[in-house]
């Protein structure tokens, strides 16, 4: 069933090495792409006249801590023409940086800033990469698995700098 998904078929025709793995769970199609090809794949999916994935619904990061490569950046695309959702995933190791798709979808601007803020994955070619939800000067990246929920300094009293 996954083989007849039109986007997967077209990607395989264009460049079979750009698809590492295709899975399907509960009716959703997930395509794993190597990090170096993600920008080209996204641009192809955006500009192709039959697919037209014009909307970036969501961009997020996942931390699979003991596994390596550790992080995964997940893109969820939507096409108005075919009324279809597609999920792209790429793996990033700790310390590596991912490629920004902000030049294709402007929605990625704030979404990538959030992934950088909470996971610590920098994005190349991003026009304005800085922290968005936590304040400047915050140390640490909270959504990583080795960061405690209460924060590292829970037992110390809190003194705000006015």
């Amino acid at each position, binding site marked *: 069933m996954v083989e007849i998904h039109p986007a997967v078929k077209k990607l395989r025709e264009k460049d079979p090495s750009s698809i590492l793995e295709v899975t399907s769970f509960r009716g959703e199609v997930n395509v794993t792409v190597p990090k170096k090809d993600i920008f080209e794949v996204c641009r192809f999916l955006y500009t192709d006249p039959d697919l037209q994935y014009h909307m970036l619904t969501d961009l997020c990061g996942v931390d699979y801590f003991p596994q390596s490569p550790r992080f995964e950046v997940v893109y969820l695309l939507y096409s108005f023409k075919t009324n279809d959702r597609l999920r792209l995933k790429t793996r990033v190791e700790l310390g590596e940086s991912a490629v920004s798709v902000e030049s294709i979808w402007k929605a990625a601007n704030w979404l990538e800033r959030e992934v950088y803020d909470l996971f610590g994955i920098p994005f190349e070619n991003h026009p304005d990469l800085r922290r968005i939800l*936590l304040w400047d000067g915050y140390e640490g990246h*909270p959504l990583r698995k080795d960061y*405690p929920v209460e924060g590292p300094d829970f037992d110390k009293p*809190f003194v705000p700098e006015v």
Partner: protein
Amino acid sequence: MIVAGTLTKKMAPMVKRIYEQMPEPKWVIAYGACACSGGIFKTYSVVQGVDQILPVDVYVPGCPPRPESLLTAILELQKKIEKETLADRKNVRSTLEMKG
């Protein structure tokens, strides 16, 4: 000043600054579970209660508190103000200066 809602560490300096900009006499109501004690959010970015940075006069529990609770809180505050003397006001001032 009614502090309603969760107080985060990013917002705390602004709340303290607003409190210091208020003219005397001033009182603080901590409205809601998050303002009283941090509520259900025991996380890295939430201040566990407004009383960690400001002196609070009336606590209103609830998540969210019913409108009748707010009216009761204001009446309680009025009762508290009636019983205050000038010496009590001086107390609040010096605590603030000690906290720095």
